[in-house]
């Protein structure tokens, strides 16, 4: 019978705690404890910043987030108009939604207390139900912590000074690894599809690329775009403007990914093999198409797939329209266009080259011969500046200049070229001139950031040593003794804010006249349509406003049988809109002929 004195008495020292201050938080639960600075509590959503991309909803493994319409928020391009609603019966406050939010609008707050006897009250729309949450944000993602990849995989390009030595394609294209990596950045929200005039299935084909399934990507792309390689190289890519990732980083290189995909199919046979289109039995309808530009080709391709007999009349020796003759070869090599035309021809589309409507064949004949007619003639005629000396020798329209060059001819431009304008044509003309060995200067009325040309093009031009003089309004061309252009005089302009809220207007500054020397001046301030081939009986009936055909949403003009698209019908003046027009016209023609409405 031993006795452990220490073991009996030592525990009694615990009783000294009686006199100590209790650790209990007295105020809880009446005043809940303030959570720490990084606590993951209830959600808060900045409704104005949120674009409703739904990435939070996608990442949520609990399917706790619904995207729902919210009062006072309208959808627009780049904003779905939906906002996340969190089911607190699902949420586990892991914060993944915050980490993947591309805009950073979603965050978690310090609030964590909600108790109710009604289980149906656990659906919360952050930002709507807790507008006061903004002050209580505790867990948010920064560009550093975000799980979005904000950095674009850089596109391999020729060095600026190497480029001007030849007409070799500047952009080298992604290799497979780069393409997969770039495609993996996509969060597949689909906001881009709305911005794309053609509504291409962008998330789907990017996902296919990311999964290493290039053939599927090609198939998905060809579903509504028969000229993807063209788009992959020269598209104005409005999709990238609204890309969710672009809010805090570089947009996904959607255009380059498309380009990568199309480059995986090396020739027309391969395209046919990969796309493996389902060509339907001929249905006996015949459709005539005027102009083998993007819109015309699109109409022909999809109608051909549906069993229509399509014939294209093209004035020039090659198909492609402006993409063939207007876009310089370092941007869009001829081979890749040929490949696509060849594929379209393989599907069964007939193209009559060197057949100018109105000259070689009359429009009336076409109109009577076919069940439906599509006009996709584009804007071949350039606008003129309307200033003194414009008709001098050496003053060339940039469109004509590019046509000649692309046709393999030479144009004498000397060694000092001035390009007037800020669109893609102007930049193209400038860069082509640089490749011909000239020292090029661009005069543009507004600021550089106002230029309608692609920023990549502008940067490329600057890399190639092209000077851009912004806010310069040409007023006069001076001739030399031979009647050739010698110099250009221009006025500097101030940008004056437009009272109506439009973009600022350039206003010339008196007395700021500057004269620069030039051996050639290339005017590139826009083009217009030329519908002289329409006989009077048609031009009376067809409504044409501001140089464009008036069409309905199916591209049907005021004449039932007559459809129009491309530059001749829309104001966007880019390839993808032309393709979109063509695609809609296909529906219109099909509805008209097959379905009969």
């Amino acid at each position, binding site marked *: *019978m031993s*006795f452990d004195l220490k073991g009996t008495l030592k*525990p*009694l020292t*615990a*009783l000294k*705690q*009686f006199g*100590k201050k*209790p*650790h*209990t938080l*007295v105020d809880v639960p009446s005043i809940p404890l303030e959570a720490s600075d990084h606590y993951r509590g209830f959600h808060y959503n900045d409704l104005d910043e949120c674009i409703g991309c739904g990435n939070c909803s996608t990442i949520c493994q609990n399917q706790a987030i619904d995207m729902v319409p919210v009062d006072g928020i309208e959808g627009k391009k780049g904003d779905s108009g939906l906002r996340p609603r969190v089911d607190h019966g699902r949420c586990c406050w892991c914060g993944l939604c915050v980490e993947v939010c591309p805009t950073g609008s979603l965050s978690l707050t310090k609030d964590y207390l909600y108790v109710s006897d009604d289980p149906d009250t656990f659906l919360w729309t952050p930002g709507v139900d807790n507008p006061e949450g903004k002050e209580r944000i505790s867990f948010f993602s920064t560009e550093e912590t975000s799980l979005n990849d904000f950095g674009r995989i850089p596109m391999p390009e020729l060095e600026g000074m190497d480029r001007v030595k030849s007409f070799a394609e500047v952009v080298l294209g992604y290799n497979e690894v780069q393409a997969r990596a770039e495609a993996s950045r996509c969060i597949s929200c689909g906001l881009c599809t709305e911005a794309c005039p053609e509504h291409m299935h962008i998330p789907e084909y990017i996902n296919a690329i990311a999964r290493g399934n290039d053939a599927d990507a090609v198939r998905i792309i060809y579903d509504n775009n028969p000229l993807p390689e063209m788009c992959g190289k020269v598209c104005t890519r409005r999709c990238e403007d609204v890309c969710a990732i672009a809010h805090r980083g570089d947009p996904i290189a959607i255009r380059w990914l498309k380009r990568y995909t199309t480059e995986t199919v090396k020739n027309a046979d391969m395209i046919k093999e990969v796309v493996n289109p389902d060509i339907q039995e001929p249905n006996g309808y015949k459709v005539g198409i005027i102009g083998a530009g993007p819109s015309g080709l699109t109409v022909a391709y999809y109608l051909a797939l549906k069993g229509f007999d399509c014939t294209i009349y093209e004035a020039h020796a090659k198909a492609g329209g402006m993409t063939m003759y207007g876009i310089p070869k370092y941007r869009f090599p001829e081979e890749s266009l040929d490949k696509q035309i060849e594929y379209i021809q393989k599907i069964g589309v007939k193209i009559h080259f060197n057949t100018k409507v109105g000259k070689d064949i009359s429009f009336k004949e076409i109109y009577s011969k076919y069940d439906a007619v599509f006009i996709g003639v584009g804007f071949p005629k350039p606008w003129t500046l309307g200033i003194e000396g414009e008709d001098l020798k050496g003053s060339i329209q940039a469109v004509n200049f590019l046509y000649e060059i692309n046709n393999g001819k030479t144009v004498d431009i000397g060694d000092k070229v001035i390009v007037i304008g800020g669109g893609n044509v102007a930049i193209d003309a400038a860069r082509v001139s640089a490749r011909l060995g000239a020292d090029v200067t661009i005069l543009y009325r507004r600021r550089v950031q106002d230029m309608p040309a692609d920023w990549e093009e502008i940067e490329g031009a600057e890399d190639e040593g092209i000077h851009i003089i912004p806010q310069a309004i040409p007023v006069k061309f001076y001739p030399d003794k031979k009647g050739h252009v010698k110099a250009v005089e221009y006025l500097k302009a101030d940008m004056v804010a437009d009272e109506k809220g439009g973009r600022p207007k350039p206003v010339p500054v008196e007395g700021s006249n500057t004269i620069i020397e030039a051996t050639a001046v290339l005017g590139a301030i826009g083009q217009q349509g030329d519908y002289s081939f329409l006989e009077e009986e048609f031009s009376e009936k067809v409504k044409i406003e501001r140089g464009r055909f008036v069409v309905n949403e199916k591209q049907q003009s005021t004449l039932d049988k007559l459809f129009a698209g491309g530059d001749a019908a829309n104001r966007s003046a880019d390839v993808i809109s032309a393709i979109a027009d063509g695609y809609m016209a296909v529906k219109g023609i099909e509805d008209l002929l097959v379905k009969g409405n």
Partner: protein
Amino acid sequence: MQEILQYTWGALVSFVVAFTVGITYMGLNRKITARVQNRIGPPWYQNFFDVLKLGSKETSIHHGVMQHMGPAFIMVTAVMSLLIIPILNDNRFFPNLNFHGDLVFLLYIMVFGPLGMALGAGQTGNPNSAIGVTRGLSQMVGFEIPWVMALVALMIQYKTTSIVDLMNLQAETGRWLMFTSPFAFLAAVLAMLGMFRYAPFDIVGAPQELASGPMSENGGKYLFVMMSAGSVFAFAKLTLYVDLFMGGANNLIILVVKTFILYLIPMLYGIVSPRYRTEQAIRYFWGWPSLFGLLAILQAVFL
């Protein structure tokens, strides 16, 4: 007639006092325990809420008559002990049913309760209850030995079996029995640890082992009765100790102070102790406490 009325009145008053004080003590126990455990703890009157709530619960468990009897037995035991134990020195307000030989009677009646409990618990069919009862009885066998030894020592030493006699003795000499019979007191106090069933002797209901043992099938009103009986019984036991060893009390305040001091012993020891295993508990009681009991008897016989 007058006497019967007075007795009834006294019984009622003593029950109310015992109930109130007992419940308050348990509340204080929780409060003090909480403070040692670094927290605020419930208010001292928390146990009144608990009892009231248990009383207001609907009870719809039927395991048979004996289950009803269990708590009743305990209650009867508690009240009986209370009535026999003199509450104050002069029984003016609390005329009790004390008589010669009540000490011996008490020894019996205090066993009566747990036995009833055993019957009730056996009826529920819950194996935990059955094991709990076995444990309770084993433990009782343990602490009864020093307890009986202590009482026997007192009886031998002062040649009486009446509590009142012992109290009067202390009042006359002015010397408390805890000083004149220290061994008996030690044995009795150590036995009291077992009687109160606080740690380390809470083996009967040990939640981690038996999920509350005999009480596991008793909720609501059963528990209400048991809890009330427990608090009354606790007060009765404490009063008995005060009467026997600490010279009784002349008024209620002194009684409350003395009983509370006594109550602190099992309570504080409980806070800092884990639980014994059953055989360890019995071995404990048959160790030092029994030795003290033996010494007490030796002292009584030879001194």
